[in-house]
């Protein structure tokens, strides 16, 4: 199971009064985040295979590096699609509420819309300056799996998932592909080879189609600024570029101190913190 963990060297969990954790089991990746007295201490990323195993995987990745064990953590909240498979979680909170809380914590109280581009689903969340959700929209079934389909697309064109966005940005022109669903788009990508369409135009075209589909979903619930974009696809520069272009709104830039894919796990950790304090 491929995993990676990053630790805040200056902090020492043995000295912390309150240790809480947020565990976000996503469709494609699972993440965990540890807070020591509200300070981010350790985080881990693990590829999701069997949700239960990935849950333990996120904690083990951290304990291997820090010695921090499950029993040392005062309160754990699980979220994400696999949250019911985290036996050691005290409570679960939806990834919608966690995304809003985490986003406002990272980007500040001006955030009003959080666009979560997860592996399997895409959610648009309206929230208050205190990170409370007041409205949200889940993608319809035909727009499912936009994140995972990007991985299938990368395999089809034999490119690495982390570079595919940059390749897309290099192409001025783009092949117009169906922005209705990924099955149609992927099938048209294959058939585009008949007309010998240059590869970067196909790659740019696919990114544009995904961005169009997401922007239609955003428009259905409305976009209130400031906008924050999180989730796996948020790391793809071409998706961000076209989303900002189509929506006519620039998102808040990612904070250097924060990996945006940890936003939901942070929200869960914040809930764990407040549950612990209220105990």
């Amino acid at each position: 199971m491929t995993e990676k963990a990053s630790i805040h060297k200056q902090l020492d969990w043995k000295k912390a009064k309150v240790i809480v954790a947020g565990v976000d089991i996503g469709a494609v990746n699972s993440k965990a985040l540890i807070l020591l007295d509200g300070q981010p201490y350790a985080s881990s990323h693990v590829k999701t295979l069997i949700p239960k195993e990935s849950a333990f995987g996120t904690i083990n990745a951290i304990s291997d590096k820090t010695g921090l064990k499950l029993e040392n953590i005062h309160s754990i909240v699980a979220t994400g699609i696999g949250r019911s498979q985290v036996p050691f979680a005290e409570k679960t909170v939806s990834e919608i509420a966690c995304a809003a809380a985490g986003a406002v914590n990272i980007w500040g109280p001006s955030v009003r819309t959080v666009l979560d581009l997860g592996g399997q689903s895409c959610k648009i969340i309206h929230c208050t300056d205190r990170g409370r959700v007041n409205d949200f929209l889940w993608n319809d079934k035909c727009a499912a799996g936009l994140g995972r389909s990007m991985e299938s697309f990368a395999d089809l064109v034999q490119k690495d998932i982390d570079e595919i966005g940059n390749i897309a940005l290099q192409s001025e022109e783009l092949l117009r592909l169906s922005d209705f669903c990924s099955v149609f788009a992927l099938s048209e990508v294959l058939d585009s080879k008949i007309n010998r369409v240059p590869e970067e135009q196909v790659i740019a075209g696919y990114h544009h189609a995904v961005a169009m589909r997401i922007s239609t979903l955003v428009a259905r619930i409305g976009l209130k600024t400031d906008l924050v974009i999180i989730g796996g696809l948020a790391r793809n520069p071409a998706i961000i570029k076209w989303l900002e272009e189509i929506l006519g709104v620039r998102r808040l830039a990612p904070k250097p101190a924060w990996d945006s894919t940890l936003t939901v796990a942070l929200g869960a950790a914040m809930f764990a913190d407040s549950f612990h304090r209220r105990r």
Partner: protein
Amino acid sequence: MAYTLKVWSDFKNYQTKCYRDYLSRASGGLRCMGSTWSVLAPLKGLGHDVHLIGGEPHAASTAGTLPEEGRKNIMAAESAGLGFHSCSYLKLFVGEVVRDKMSITDGTVHDGYPRPDLIWTTHLCNLHSKWYQEVSRILGGVPLFPIDVIGGGAAEQDPKIVDYVSDQMEEGIGWLERVTGRQFNDELFIRAARNEIKVLVLWGNVCALNMHSPAPLDERRFIALFPPAMVDRTTDEAAKLYEDLLAEVQHMVDTGQSVIPNQDYRIAYFGLAHTYGHPEIGRTLKNAGAEIVASVYTFGTAGNFKGFDKDRKWSWEGIDPSWVGDLDLSTRRKALTELAKIVLAWPTWQGVRSYWALEEMSKAMAAQFKADGFLLAPTRSCETDFRNGYIALQRIFKDRLPTIEYDTETVDVRKMDIPGSKRKTELFVDLMKAHKNKKGGV
């Protein structure tokens, strides 16, 4: 040598004139919106200055003349919340209301959506009835009167349905008077009624002439020639247009001329316009001399034929136009009853609720138009008979005639299966060749 129709430009100008008059509210008249699948003549009882716009022909011609504009309208409708699987004609039309713009057949885009005074429409499929409900809602409540036509096989021979439709139209006339504050003029209404029935009968005759070999017209021409019968078939000009067209096509038949001289393979077509018309797919058919000579969409959306006889056998032969002149339309009720019957007799209404009617019509089309192949193009997210029952039709035709089915869409190219349709069209041509060689013993 391919024949070019003389009446071509008259048809284009007529449709654009209707739009212009509607937009400019020519002579201070009334703007009436609605489905062109409803009876239109009652609206003309309100005066000489009544201008119509119909959802379906407007969406179809916008997609044809301004595809990019059509695409933006569809996206705007989806962004406003219309279902991703709703009919694309509907989304294109409502998208214009959302964007506050309207495209015209002469390629211009008019800023500011012209608000209709009233909506007179029909309940054909669930989307039809709701299409204009949505327009009325977005525009803050335009008065709307829906006629529930129900439809179904041989409905025109079912007195309870004919009376039901006539009763509603009779009540609708009272509503029209209340909403417009105008006095209903029966003389104008009956004149419009006769024109409406005449145009529908004339169009049926034009289509029936394609039974001949060589067939004078093809689907591409039918697509361009039937919109006026949709937009406003109640005027004297419309009746004249179709009389001239019938005369010219009759002349083509008498002299053996055709717009498509090379017709090695005659195709019967159940589906909407837009995929077979795609350049790549159209070229495959043209290179093989395969032409669509009969189609339920262009024939049956606003056209009448002999239709069902007593024992429910269907015929695509035209009705003798002189029958229209002898029709007794002396009272409002009689005119409404004849109008109800003529609309209920449309092939498209027949197939909506009755699979047996769809089967009879398709078998008759294959036989009477001497088809070499049957092309089925169910329209994604369309509710009427442009999808209902098509899939199962393959089971009926499989052993009789080369038959293929592929996914198309009214106007939304995103949901069309261009690569798949191209492959299936190439296969279709091969199957027709193989079938003809085997049959011909070559």
